[in-house]
């Protein structure tokens, strides 16, 4: 009789132990999830880059199996002030679930020449184009992009081989990891932008 009762008691205590354990784990996971979500909305988040419409800036090798990962900064969403040369992430105007990453080539009020005519970029929109003009679906196809709807921009990049931080917005000083390759890359990028604009 006593033995049976002890067994039942032990089982009850064990059950409670497992329950509290599960509860603790769920609580921690929930808190962690919420904090992670807030950080990724307000500070920065990591976004994989697919496709080669932005070669050679991102995904320079066509047949590498690893995508580039980009650190995307969210502070700019406060003011929505973008400059020509910024690389931004935006939702496609025709498929709202898809996100593209391209470079801003025209800011509101500028005139862009496309194949047949000259288009003025309307207020609140931006003209984006991929660096690899040959294989890039961008504003030349779907027109000026409405305020870079959704999570956006700015590019530090870390990829599988080297990690370095480059802020390719013209005029911003950048915190660059101390390494020779990094610095030369920054200089190359800056020169390239100067050449383009």
């Amino acid at each position, binding site marked *: 009789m006593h033995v049976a009762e002890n067994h039942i008691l032990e089982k009850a205590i064990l059950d409670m132990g497992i329950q509290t354990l599960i509860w603790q784990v769920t609580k921690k996971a929930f808190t962690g999830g919420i904090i992670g*979500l807030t950080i990724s909305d307000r500070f920065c988040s990591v976004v994989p880059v697919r496709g080669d419409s932005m070669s050679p800036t991102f995904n320079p090798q066509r047949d590498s199996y690893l995508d580039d990962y980009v650190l995307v900064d969210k502070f700019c969403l406060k003011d929505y002030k973008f400059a020509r040369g910024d690389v931004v992430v935006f939702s496609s105007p025709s498929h709202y679930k898809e996100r593209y990453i391209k470079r801003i080539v025209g800011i509101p009020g500028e005139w862009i020449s496309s194949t047949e005519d000259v288009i003025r970029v309307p207020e609140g929109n931006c003209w984006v184009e991929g660096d690899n003009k040959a294989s890039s679906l961008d504003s030349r196809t779907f027109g000026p992009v409405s*305020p870079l709807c959704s999570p956006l921009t700015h590019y530090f990049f870390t990829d599988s081989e080297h990690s370095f931080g480059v802020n390719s917005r013209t005029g911003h000083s950048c915190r660059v990891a101390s390494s020779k390759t990094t610095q030369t890359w920054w200089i190359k990028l800056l020169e390239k932008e100067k050449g383009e604009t």
Partner: protein
Amino acid sequence: MRWLRYLNQWRGTAKEAFEQVSIVAKFLCLIHVTDRYIISSTHVQGPSMLPTLNLTGDVILAEHLSHRFGKIGLGDIVLVRSPTDPTRMVTKRVLGLEGHRLSFSADPLVGDSSISVVVPKGHVWIQGDNLYASTDSRNFGPVPYSLIEGKALLRVWPPRFFGSLR
């Protein structure tokens, strides 16, 4: 030796301070997630949605779940980021989804000329209820679906107008 003792004294306080700060931080994160992803309250004002919404300003509750699942329908009042000024949010009614053909009159005061458009894929047509005092899709064209940020649920202030919005 003395500073070791001071360090030990401060360790307890520092730990407690850290705990309190982390509680506050977690609370703020929870508020952010609720406000951005579940439900939030907004103050709306302006004449463009008369008579549904008042001129002097109402506080409405908006939920942020429907647009993520694509469940915005015709006639819903939505909170949309303005396509002409991305720092502003506007409240309008959805009058056309993608593929719909709409006709509207270019100038409601003058009257008869009517323009017909087809809403392109991935866009919606928004219009204010007050046709005479609203800048909406008749001015800036159909807006991409991704600019929609929330759907209005009900109005909570002023109290005599409490209730769901239709």
